[in-house]
């Protein structure tokens, strides 16, 4: 894995409280799971960023090595890797995710009605 890619990823993760590496953009998701993840975070109302790595195979490989996670999307919250909605969904049902997000942003979710999956 190139050091440059690793630094690029670390900088992106550090610059965004919620960061999604996915296929396609927020406006034009190009994968059902990426879309699902965008909708998932839209439900909370906190700002989040989506980085499209669909065509960037070296970066996808670097991300997989760094996270021990082979698939996209990959979600980072406050610098910590949380996998995808298969992990985040159950965490939200238990209320754990809400606590993590509240601590990351220092405030309650902007949206009060949270519809899960």
């Amino acid at each position, binding site marked *: 894995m190139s050091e440059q890619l690793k630094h690029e990823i670390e900088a992106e993760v550090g610059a965004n409280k919620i960061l999604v590496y996915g296929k396609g953009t927020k406006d034009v998701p190009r994968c059902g*799971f990426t879309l699902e993840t965008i909708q998932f975070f839209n439900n909370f109302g906190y700002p989040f960023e989506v980085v499209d790595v669909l065509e960037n195979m070296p970066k996808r490989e670097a991300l997989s090595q760094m*996270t*021990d*996670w*082979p*698939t996209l999307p990959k979600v980072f919250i406050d610098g910590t*890797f*949380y*996998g995808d909605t*298969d*992990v985040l969904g*159950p*965490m939200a049902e238990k209320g754990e995710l809400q606590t993590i997000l509240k601590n990351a942003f220092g405030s309650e979710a902007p949206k009060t009605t949270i519809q899960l999956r």
Partner: protein
Amino acid sequence: MIANDAIVALIRETMPDAEVTVFDRTGTMDHFNIGVTSAAFAGKTLIQQHQMVYRALKAAHSDGRIHAIELTTTVAE
């Protein structure tokens, strides 16, 4: 493409006690719903549990036999 049995075998290589259910979501043998129950998940966070399964299936992901997985993990009682 990978057969359901082969997925079960890969997971049991690292977690011999694992109860594994595999459902081919698309009929194309590369998009799966997988459920894994194992005592090896005890004391692990959900993300760690999922990483354990993904590590077991790493080769099948790397060579493209598996495209996508919806994964559910459960700690065996």
